[in-house]
């Protein structure tokens, strides 16, 4: 699996978990149960499992971690799985802020890769699943859970071929989720999305993809890159780069409130600017020429 395919696979599961292609690195919630309690991050690691302590320890050990000072005092309690942290407002606030820290994002990516993605790939290859889509299905089963329970029920992959096996596995998983307590039956949208990708033959996860009505493009995957190309897509691109473009447009006489959303209105403003300036670039797409014309 290439790096892009890996990113795509992670993006697919991010959409399933957070509704966002790049995930919600600052998501903080509280899960019930001994292994739950305070839960944090793009793929949710919990206080009860001890994973939250591991993640935050790694983050605090990073030299450029902006919010390490606010989080580090809680590490002893995190290690002790102190459930009083579930409602600690200081920790919650620190975690929310840290979610925007690129260091936290990198730390989470590494952490969740080691915890979910790498074991998933190993398990997939162990049973003979080699296609990126197939491995993504296995990865999703590791993140949400259930792979060890369901995989043995279908027999060897090589008996029926990988694609057929993956189809059957997705169907089995759908049935299983539907049999579980709420709200697990409502997460069968994951299986709907996989079925759609299977029908489209997206076994190699070639971009662009649409998962659960959310488009995954290479540009989206590069969302963290400051020099990304801004264009109209769904969900709308947001971020400081969008705000910067909007402010420059406003300064050039194209009034807007700089809401940071690269939606149809912003794209229309960009297109008007391009037309006015005669910029030879795709209409409504903020590429290098447009950025340069705006002084960015």
């Amino acid at each position: 699996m290439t790096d892009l395919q890996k990113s795509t696979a992670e993006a697919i599961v991010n959409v399933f978990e957070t509704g966002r292609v790049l995930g919600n690195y600052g998501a903080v919630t509280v899960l019930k149960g001994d292994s739950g309690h305070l839960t944090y991050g793009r793929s949710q690691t919990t206080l009860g499992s001890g994973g939250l302590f591991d993640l935050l320890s790694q983050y605090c050990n990073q030299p450029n971690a902006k919010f390490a000072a606010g989080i580090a005092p809680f590490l002893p309690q995190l290690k002790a799985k102190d459930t009083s942290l579930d409602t600690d407002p200081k920790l919650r606030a620190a975690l929310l802020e840290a979610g925007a820290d690129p260091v936290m994002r990198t730390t989470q990516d590494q952490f969740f890769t080691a915890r979910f993605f790498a074991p998933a790939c190993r398990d997939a290859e162990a049973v003979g699943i080699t296609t990126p889509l197939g491995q993504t299905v296995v990865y999703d089963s590791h993140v949400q859970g259930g792979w060890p329970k369901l995989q043995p029920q279908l027999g060897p992959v090589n008996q029926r071929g990988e694609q057929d096996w993956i189809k059957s596995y997705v169907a089995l998983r759908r049935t299983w989720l539907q049999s579980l307590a709420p709200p697990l039956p409502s997460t069968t949208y994951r299986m709907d999305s996989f079925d759609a990708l299977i029908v489209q033959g997206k076994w190699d996860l070639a971009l662009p993809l649409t998962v659960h009505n959310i488009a995954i493009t290479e540009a989206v995957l590069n969302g963290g890159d400051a020099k990304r190309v801004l264009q109209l897509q769904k969900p709308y691109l947001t971020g400081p780069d969008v705000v910067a473009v909007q402010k420059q447009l406003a300064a050039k006489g194209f009034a807007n409130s700089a809401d940071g959303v690269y939606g149809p209105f912003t794209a229309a403003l960009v297109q008007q600017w391009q037309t006015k300036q005669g910029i030879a670039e795709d209409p409504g797409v903020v590429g290098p020429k447009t950025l340069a014309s705006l002084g960015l």
Partner: protein
Amino acid sequence: MKPRRSGAVRRISRSLVLALLGSALMPAQGNAPNRLAQLINARVSRGGSFSLEIPNGPAATTAKTIALARGNRSIVLPAIYVPPVAPSKNGEVSAQVPDWLPLGDYSVLVHFDQQDYPGSSALSVGPPGNPPVHLNEFAPPNTYDLTTVYNPDPSQWRAASIDLVRLDFQSPGIDGRPLLLNGVPFEPVLGTCSALPPLGTQTNPTAWPEPIYEEISGPGHIQLCRVPKDSVVTVQGLSDVRPTQVGQSEQQWIREPAHGQKASVVSLTLHGSDFQYDHPYDNVVSINHIRVPVIWDSCATLPPAGTSTSPVASQIHGEVISTQEMHLCMVPLPSDGQLLVSVGYGDVSSETRAYRVFFESEWRVAIESGIVALILALLPLGLLSFVKQQYAVADETYKLRMLFLDPQTDTYSLSKLQFYLWTVAAIFGYTYLFVSRVRVQFQAWPDVSSTLPGIIAVAAGTAVGSQVITSTKGAKGAGDEKPSFADFITSGGVVAPDRLQMLLWTLFGVVAFLEATLQQGPGTISELPAVPERLLYLMGLSSVAYLGGKMARKAGPIIDEISLTPPGSDEAILKSRDVASQLPDFAAPIAAAQASIPAPNAAAGVPAKAAVDALSNAVSTAGAAMTSSDITQLIATLGKFRQTAEKAAEDAASDFAQNKASQADAETAQGAAAALQDFSASIVQAISFAAAQQMPAIIGGLQQPRTIEIRGSNLATDATFQLSDADLPFRMLLNKDGQNAPDVVVRDETTPTFAKLMRLTIDPAKLGDADLAQFRNWFGADGKLTFTITNPDGQHAVISFTVPPGIGKKSETVK
């Protein structure tokens, strides 16, 4: 239709007639004073000679005969006379007894010319040696085997015609010889063929069979009239003598039987001595002091028994097997079933012996007794059927078997079995005796044997003693959950030798008693077999050993009730959790989205309003999602709202580009669409997080401690436990003191090592991998579990329960 002639051979009548006709053989009447002739040998056999001494006998005679008379019949034999030889004055006359002469005592009359000399005593004609005849026994001594025959009913007849002929016999040696009709001796009626009673007519038919008449035409010449046509009549010993038919046949109307009377006949075998083997017809059979005619042929081939519409007149048939054995068959049965039989020959008769015929066979009496015993035994069961309640053990209902169940342990009770078996056996035996004596033997109500009450007393005493011991010392272990026949020999699932020996002795005693009872036929049984005293003593010892074993053995565990807390499986608990608590928490996304909704007057254009409305509606819809179904539909619904908002934003932007819409509208629409996109993502995340909350328990199982509480008696505190055939070791238990042991909640006051209420707690969080896997196997999914407690002495108790509801009861009364 052919007539049958009964009676033995008595062919001397014709000679008597000849004498009466005044022939030369006829003794003179009154010509000379009768003088007695002295029989020199009073006993003689057929073919032998006998002599008489004639006092002052004549010097010579021209004609001399000796007439032998028996009853009113006589036969005249040619005689040889030896005149007196001086100095004796007595002559001697002798004759030879014909070899066909019927046996018996004959009066003798010597006739010389015109003088008669009556014999001084009777001449006895018998077999060689004239032995006495003895009837020793019948084999078998009685019978239950009756054969049904249909004899003609004289009251129901129809007119039928037969042809009769007149036969003429002429032969010098014919006089006095027996005649055979179709090979069977018969005795015609003397008469004159021309002066016979009138023939029957169609309107006035005669009874049947009609006699055959014999007319003595002269020496060596007889005629038989009214002989059924086609009958074969021969003269015994003169097989070459053939009759000739005289004249035309006559038509005789007779009363042909139209209906048969049902009657019973039996066969019997007589054992004795000196039965007449060479000449079976010499045998004389008397039944109930009446001499009966017997057709001596064979019992192997008998005439048909007849039917109700085609009756056959039954006749006794006989067969002499040897001088010691004789068969009689088709013997009519008197109403009292008793045949007084004697056998003999001539005037010699054996002793009379009774032969008993029983109208009910041995098996019939046995079956009747069995049915009566069964009915009596089932009577309590029948009474139970009126009880609507049943006894339920482990989901299996017991109604009739309640009688054998010990309610304390839900096991089959050996003492009850013993008591019931002996009671039923006694009822059967006494019923057998009663039926035999009253209905077969027509005797009075019989008494019971002296030992039977002893046996019942032993059985009853055992049952009572067993109950007393159970009440004072405690019951045996319940053993397996459902009663089984193994309970009879086990105590708490462990084989108990004292129970085994008592079961064996009980079964042996009952079977032996029944066997001994049935060995006595219904015709001869007079009382129930007495149980040998030492056997009775042995059975008493057996019961003592049983009760002693019960005393010596420790009480065994009994589980009355078991309960599991929580009562449901992990799977069920997960599913049954409060749905509301499982639903995703949308509060934060909703709050954020509500904050993003522009003010009502912020959007003037239609697209902008549409975008805002879509956002507003999406938030409202999410806020109203209360069920799992709502959540599932919410994702799709939000997708539609989002598409609506995105389309509105595009329209507003397009209008803005064409100066149809204001910047505010376009920006508001874009903002609403973006907010809706964020809201949708947050909702998905909330759902995903909520799902993640469930998954660890689903995958790894609930970390829910389980408590098994057992209530009962004799629950050893150091017992071992099993759950569904898998060990539940102490290391999996955790009591309130933190020890790996059960909690004794209520201890037995009399036996401190026993508990009445025991609690077993298992905390999955404290289990190792193997034990945890077993824990999941027990409580992971709904199903049935079987709990076993085994006391140190090996006695155990088993109870099952289902999860849910996690409650099991030893037994209960159900309707």
